[in-house]
């Protein structure tokens, strides 16, 4: 594990497109998640009473309840989106504990990409639920003069999402990397456990916030 904070070494250039270590890690995490999800779904569909099926059900119910409690109602597309966010960020936190493998979420570009996706998902969900006029009208309430503040709010919370995740994940890795550099192996194990806990907590927080934002967009105008 290196103390390289912001740099993301390019492993290979595919023409003009650089292939970085974060990309490879993210792709690997995604592949693993997809395989595991396929196994869980297969177990649920074929062997309803197996442990894998029970694990799949528990995972699904946990994510569904998490999203439903935050968003206020069941929304299958939101469940898939927010559930994928949780699984990806949590898997990144776990993978980040492996020596020499940086968590994709400790890269600002990666967390920004996730935050931007949440930012885009909010109006998409609002438009889908309320229509274009019904959704964008709330930017003019309670007074059109507040439109800039609404926009700043949307942008700032997106930036906050990105920086919160990046800062927490990067700091944990930085601390562990510094201690490894100074004291050697096995010493930072408690800190690694704490880092894993923080990573899982950040996955929970990111998912909750994304669900709240999207849920608010879905229910926009209901209060009036």
């Amino acid at each position: 594990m290196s103390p390289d904070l912001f740099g993301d070494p390019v492993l290979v250039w595919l023409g003009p497109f650089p292939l970085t270590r974060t990309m490879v890690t993210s792709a690997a995490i995604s592949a693993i998640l997809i395989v595991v999800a396929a196994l869980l779904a297969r177990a649920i569909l074929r062997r309803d009473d197996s442990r894998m099926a029970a694990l799949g059900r528990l995972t699904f119910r946990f994510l569904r309840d998490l999203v439903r409690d935050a968003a206020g109602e069941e929304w299958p597309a939101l469940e898939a989106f927010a559930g994928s966010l949780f699984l990806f960020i949590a898997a990144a936190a776990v993978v980040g504990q492996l020596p020499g493998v940086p968590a994709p979420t400790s890269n600002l570009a990666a967390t920004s990409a996730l935050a931007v996706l949440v930012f885009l998902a909010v109006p998409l969900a609002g438009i889908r639920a309320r229509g274009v006029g019904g959704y964008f009208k709330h930017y003019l309430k309670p007074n059109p003069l507040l439109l800039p503040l609404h926009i700043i709010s949307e942008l700032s919370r997106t930036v906050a999402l990105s920086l919160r995740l990046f800062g927490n994940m990067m700091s944990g890795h930085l601390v562990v990397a510094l201690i490894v550099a100074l004291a050697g192996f096995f010493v930072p194990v408690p800190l690694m456990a704490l880092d894993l806990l923080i990573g899982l907590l950040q996955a929970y927080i990111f998912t909750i916030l994304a669900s709240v934002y999207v849920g608010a967009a879905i229910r926009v105008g209901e209060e009036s």
Partner: protein
Amino acid sequence: MSPTLANFLFEAANFLVLAGALGWLLFKPVRAALDRERERHAKEEADLKALRDEAEKLRADAADAHARLTSELDASRTEALAAAERAAAEIQAKAEKTRDERMAGLERELDALRQSQAEGLADTLGRIAATSVQRLLERVDGPSLDAALIRAASAEIGALAKGARAAPVVESARPLDAETRGLLRGALGRDFEERSDPALGAGVRVTTSAGQIDASARSLAREAARELRAAGLPEGTAP
């Protein structure tokens, strides 16, 4: 392309692919399976509720039928009891009527039997009395019973008015001798028609236009029997 921008774009695309794949591979089938399971549970619950409702309805129907049958049974029992009581009363009344009729018939038969026995006894006693009187008269060497009776008849005829002695008929148990015939002719004041009737026993019976004078042993016996009846026969023999 800068590595940062490439990273950003790749991460966004990677996550969209991941979300799509997870939605298609995990969330959609698991949600469908859970929905099916929920629907199955709901259906089983609905079936159970329907069965429970049906059982409740059957129980209520059974209770109603039981109550109805019990009521009908009570009514039938009451009706049968009343009919049986009526029939018993009718049978009892009929039996009492039959008993009364039979009792009345038996009493009538008994009365008739008593009457006939009393009459027979009176006749027998009369005959015995007449026979005894005749024997007594013979032993005391007095006139025969026939002569005594004819003299008694002649005395009664003599008490009649002369107009009441027309068309006389004299019936006797035995043929009259000249003496008794003359005695009677003298009493009647004219000739008379003679007839023989052994059933008279002794004496004569004279019939005139005014009536009949019976001075026969049978008449005496009847008189004795009448007297006996008037005096009172022993218990069970009185007519």
